[in-house]
């Protein structure tokens, strides 16, 4: 493995300064469950590894029903699912963070890392997009916010510029009648990379779908938000036929490739199956979730 120098950053300013100075020589280290393995196999190079787990802003995890959820980029998965209030309010995210790896990985792996690795199959991403997550990005020049569905440019490529650091995600508070789910399909049951992932979120009030977001993973060069699928549902009562229409829209939006893990044909088919199942689960949760007090 290539030798690198390890720097523990203590503040956003310190980290962004190093990243700005070192440019492409530097990589952020969060949980390390992707980066270290990639460095060891020579799939990535880094001369400077900047450990961001010591930066307070990247470790924040706060939730209230007025302002929603803020998750620092370096918060490991287990902290998210161990918080019962967050798990109840953001069930799609909860599904995703419990699926990623086993406990040793969940103790280390972070949403920031999963998002910045920018694998089209990253499990947290469709769930976060369904939950309307916004990425907060810092640089020596200041902060900017990017809706997560606009964060990705291609496999392994994001909108992050030299010197920029992903600080946290902001998720709006779940409105009344909200439900969400994330499902994935792996070719050999466990311990694999999704060949299709689907995040779905619904807001149902008075029997009518007020909002619907469907996001797909692993079926295009970047995770995909499928507004056409949502459009099939919004303004109508949820029914078998609207769900099927949304599922068909998801299938049509998918642009999968064939590889050793799955054919394009199967992936498109699974988009429809998973969309249907995720919507059904989100709808069930929308009806059973405790509703926020202010609604």
């Amino acid at each position, binding site marked *: 493995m290539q030798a690198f120098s390890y720097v523990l950053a203590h503040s956003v300013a310190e980290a962004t300064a190093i990243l700005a100075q070192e440019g492409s020589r530097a990589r952020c280290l969060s949980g*390390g*469950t992707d980066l270290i393995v990639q460095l060891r196999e020579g799939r990535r190079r880094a001369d400077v590894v900047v*450990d961001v787990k010591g930066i307070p802003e990247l470790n924040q995890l706060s939730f209230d029903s007025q302002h929603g959820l803020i998750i620092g980029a370096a918060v490991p998965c287990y902290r998210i699912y161990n918080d019962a209030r967050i798990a109840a309010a953001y069930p799609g995210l909860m599904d995703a963070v*419990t699926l990623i790896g*086993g406990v040793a990985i969940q103790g280390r792996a972070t949403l920031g890392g999963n998002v910045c690795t920018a694998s089209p199959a990253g499990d947290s991403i469709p769930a976060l997009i369904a939950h309307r997550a916004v990425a907060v990005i810092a640089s020596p020049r200041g902060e900017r916010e990017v809706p997560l569905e606009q964060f990705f440019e291609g496999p392994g490529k994001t909108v992050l510029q030299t010197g920029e650091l992903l600080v946290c995600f902001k998720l709006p508070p779940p409105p009344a009648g909200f439900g969400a789910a994330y499902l994935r399909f792996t070719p*050999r049951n*466990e*311990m694999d990379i999704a060949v299709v992932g689907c995040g779905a979120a619904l807001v149902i009030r008075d029997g009518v779908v007020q909002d619907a977001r469907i996001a797909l993973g692993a079926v295009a060069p970047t995770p995909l938000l499928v507004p056409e699928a949502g459009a099939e549902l919004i303004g109508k009562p949820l029914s078998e036929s609207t769900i099927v229409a949304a599922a068909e829209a998801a299938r049509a939006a998918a642009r999968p490739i064939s590889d050793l893990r799955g054919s394009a044909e199967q992936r498109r088919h699974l988009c429809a199956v998973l969309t249907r199942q995720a919507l059904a689960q989100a709808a069930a949760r929308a009806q059973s979730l405790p509703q926020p007090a202010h609604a």
Partner: protein
Amino acid sequence: MAQLELTINGERRSAEVHPGAFLADVLRETFGLTGTKIGCNEAECGICTVLVNGMPVNSCIYPALKAHGAHVETVEGLARNGVLHPLQQAFIDHGAVQCGFCTPGLIMTAKALLDANPNPSEDDIKHALKDTYCRCTGYVSVIHAIQDAAARLRGEPPVPPSLPQTKTPLRVVGQPLPRPDAVAKVTGAARYTDDYVFPNMLHAATLRAGIPHARIRRIDVSKARALPGVHAVLTHEDVPGSKNHGLVYNDWPVLCYDKVRYVGDAVAIVAAETREIAEQALRLIEVEYEPLPVVDDPVAALQPGAPKVHEQGNLLKHIHVEKGDLEAGFAEADVIVEGEYQTATTEHAFLEPECAIGRVTDDGRVEVYVGSQIPYADRRQVAAALGVPEDRVRIIGTLIGGGFGGKEDIAGQIHVALLARATGQPVKMLYRRSESLIFHPKRHAVRFKVKVGAKRNGRFTAMRIELWGDTGAYASLGDKVMTRAATHASGPYEVPNVRIDCYAVYTNNVPAGAFRGFGVTQSAFAIESAIDELAQRLRLDPIHIRRLNALRVGSVTNTGAVIRESAGLLECIARVEESLKQEGTPWVFRKADVPNKVYAWGFATAYKNTGLGGGAPDRSEVEVEAFTDGSVEVRTSAAEIGQGLVGVLASIAAEELGVPYERARVLLSDTDLTPDGGPTTASRQTYVTGNAARLASIQLRQRLAAVAAEMLDAPVESLRFADGWVRHHGRAVAFGEVVAQAHREGIRTRLSHLYEAPKTQPLGTGGDMHFAFSYAAQAALVEVDLETGEARCLKIISATDVGRAINPLALQGQIEGGIVMCLGNALTEEFIQEKGVPFTNRFARYKMPSIRHTPQIISHIVEDAAAEGPYGAKGVGEISSIPTTPAITNAIYAATGVRVRKLPVDQDWLLRQLRAQREG
């Protein structure tokens, strides 16, 4: 360098470490805590798990400096004042320790779980351990052990292990005893090859070809030799003796000279002060290749004009089996089914990567420390390559972190011997997982053409089977494996007319060799699928058709051998059938709450020879010594690869010599100190080495009885040896006292016995090809998701005829492990190669079963004794892992009507078939 300060197991420690160092390496190398093992270095296998501030982490990818100021817990810290932690004790008591290499990781992951959740459900356990692999146990005993430990920690009484019903035990034999090496394995004290460190030890690395087929034009190592820190760079020119090695055929270059024939071929080796320098040196070696056309398919390789892997052609061996009159048999048939089947190349995935250490002693001999399945074959091959007599080489066997057939061939043994001689320093060669994957022989991918004829009542009349086995670039054990595949290809049935033609073929793929089941795993899939199809065509019960044709005493096998005894197949079938009745479910069923899923059972049987067979002399020598302290030691070179041989040999010696089990030590695999027990292959050690140990122990007892008879003034025949005493009516003398008296009389209390198993005959002679067979029947319950094509195995009911259970606890674990491994063979495992280039070049790309895949297992033991076997025992290592695959694929057929013809079950393909069915 940076200063690291941390607390390890309650003790403050500090060290200067490289900023890029990882915790696993620092624990092992800087602090000498080698209980933490490294299996993959890619956070995939989980066995390196330690706790950092109470959280489980994969220490192989955890930067050491992140642990600065932290509390780190490793397996070494669990036992307090010599008292094992309840998890450690429960792992021993439930037989959840086999090879032991993954044990520290499993225990530490479980500790984190129990620290947070004192009463975990089975689901909680499966969630917590889903990233921590074990290749031996099949996880069932692991789950039980964790549940038991949780109970003990809650202050509840221990939960006893679940054991199969077996014959009434003797004093020791037949008792469910813990493994003698279990304590060392749960405390982290057990040492595997990479845990050994010698002063001035160098580290070695191997330059692999990286291309599947090429002529070598030029090798220039001058730049590598000039790199500071490099002590030696060797090529084929530096091999003084035999340029090739091989277990059966001498066709595998020690270091390639004219050609490279597969990606993992060794071209040059380096010894340097650190592994990093050695690897850097590899990059400085210049090799000029002339690429040659690649052949990657055994059928294509036999076509005229196919690229030649070896000069003499690509056919390693044609194996022919003939019985009766095939044409007449098919003419007689009322129904004939024909089908083609294909199995995948699969990987042993033992969790300990290959490692060897070479050392030159003061008198110029070469010592090799290695975890090998055949120490004496290593000695022969190392000596040949060095060009020295065999007695100038000593193989010292270390503990082995799993083998399954994958540690029979030479790995780094010869290379470290060459480098140690070149440098005069000890040299360690540890393979990275990626290197292990592309280098070592795999399970043969086999293509089958099967034609089976039967009468309307289900009686088989004829079978015609053709097999093409991809043996890869070198022979390894390909000839023997494919012979076994061929002779077992018509299944454990009496078939009057059989013709089998089998071709073991060279290609430019990674070599294929021994892997648990030895060809029979593949054959069983093909023939059991065909028989299932036949039963369905005849509308016969799949169990009935197998019972009707099953081999039994008096049957004649397809090679012409007569089954004279110990044929428990009918009883296996009956036991599984009985359990199925108790299940009370229909053969195919649905559940109201999951409309997209269908459930069904599948059934299959299998048999597997014990011992080398085919006319090969099958011998084992064991030395037994009694000591004045009342203990005994059993010595032989036979491999403990997790299967439990140490316990078997200790039990047998304790039984025959009448000493407590704990007082029987076993010393294995040191060619200077232990005689040759023969290869650990073909499920032969319990039978062959077990018999040698039994007979040696009996002879020693007789010798001691003569002495004791004098001491007790009693007739020899009336003496009883038990519990460390020799008794005659009311009088007794301690076993150690008898030994002391023998010594005073000048009688040696050490002797050895060379046991020779019953003679076998070569294929084609019609005689007994094998001296014993084990049998099994299994039923599998599967769940198929009709919307996604996902198939899962939920339950296995198994019955295994092993002749006699020497240790029911160890036996149970071996059977469960075999079942789960074979479940992987059916559903998840494939070593993928594309035109000779492995895609599966890291663990993340090889899907072996995790704890999440573990089905419920109901395991029955059938003990149809083999007259010559020790206490009636015969082989068990392989048999349980043979019928699982076809039981699962037959269940998938029952569930869906889709016949699986290619392994592993491709869910993408299954879904397409299901959709085509619905549409057409």
